[in-house]
């Protein structure tokens, strides 16, 4: 995987997670929608991990970029957890 593709993927992942965080913060969705949205948001992570582990992340991207990504994943997990606990099951 080239360095350019690696950067493209990580930028896409970060934007995708930010978008999921924004939607989760906005609220108003059902629990199911929240979870699906979060799962779709982190989907690029699968491609990124699968692709980047075939080469050293250190060679393609600075390790701190991963720490930023990890922080955003934590924010998304926290926000979604908060919303899921808050949302009442629709009847």
């Amino acid at each position, binding site marked *: 995987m080239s360095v350019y593709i690696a950067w493209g993927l990580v930028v896409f992942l970060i934007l995708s997670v930010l978008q999921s965080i924004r939607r989760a913060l906005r609220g108003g969705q059902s629990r199911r929608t929240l979870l699906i949205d979060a799962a779709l948001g982190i989907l690029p992570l699968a491609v990124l*991990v*699968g692709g*980047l*582990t*075939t*080469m*050293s*992340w*250190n*060679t393609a991207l600075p*390790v701190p970029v*991963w*720490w930023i*990504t*990890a*922080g955003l*994943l*934590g*924010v*998304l*997990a*926290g*926000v979604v*957890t*908060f919303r899921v*606990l*808050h949302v009442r099951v629709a009847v």
Partner: protein
Amino acid sequence: MRYLIAIAVGLAVTAAAVLLGPARITPSTQHTGDPTLAATLAEHATTGHHRLAAFTIDGGETTFAGLGADEHDEFEIGSVTKTFTAGILADRGLEETTVGEIIDASGSDIADITLRELADHTSGLPRLAGLPWWTMFTTAVTGGNPYAGITRENVIDAALGAPLSDRGEYSYSNLGSALLGQLLAIEADTTYEQLLAGRYLEPLDMADTYPMADGSVSPDAPRGLLSTGDRAEPWEMGGYLPAGGLRSTPADMARYATRLLEDGVPDLAWGVDDDGTRRHNGGTYGFSTTLLVNPETGRAVFVAGDTEHDVETVADALHAELP
């Protein structure tokens, strides 16, 4: 309460991602061997490198150096193995022999492919076949061995059933190289390991070089580092062995390079620079290597590292700085 749970989950996810994610890996500061060459290695080593070992050959003189490793340390040389396979092919003079002349390939697209095409990556075979795609994915994440359990028969069956594309054009194929090695063994009525031993390992006294057949790597043999800092599993490649399954030391590789400088480099498998330097690199989960050989100038350079971080730029730098 909801806030506390959400914060706890967020922190847990972040901590897990950081712990399971890539680690900052830096070159060893322990110099070994020739001080000047070790200093040059250190100058060109970067974040992502860990233990490095190298040699240069110039005018018949071999110089070893390393960072945290020396010429007797074991490394997986990955696809540099293909140069051994190509050497066996040249030695046996079977370049124009076709697949169908060695095995029953009737009805297969590969029947009339020559062994030269397999060595030169112009056969049109895909890069890999016979390995489940999920294995490639999961082992990439875990640092496991993607080639575990693949037999000679698996490689041949995969090649016989593989679609060809752009035959005649260069398209790097591990499948083609693996098939080549196995066909050479079948033609000689032996195993690839025996062919290798007879052609290179025994005549050149490469006692610390061995093919990673299933179960051959001892538990205390060196393991390379993944980008996470975890240890990678050795690539015991089974049927794919001729494409990248050798472990060696810089001392043994110096014997191999010296032989290439003396006898010439087969016009197969190697990349050729404008100045006539032949090059091949190799990589496995946990190791990276590069070998440069120029019979015209009598110079050779080898660099091996125990991470996946490419060492080709380091080898090029050592080559360029030879006096």
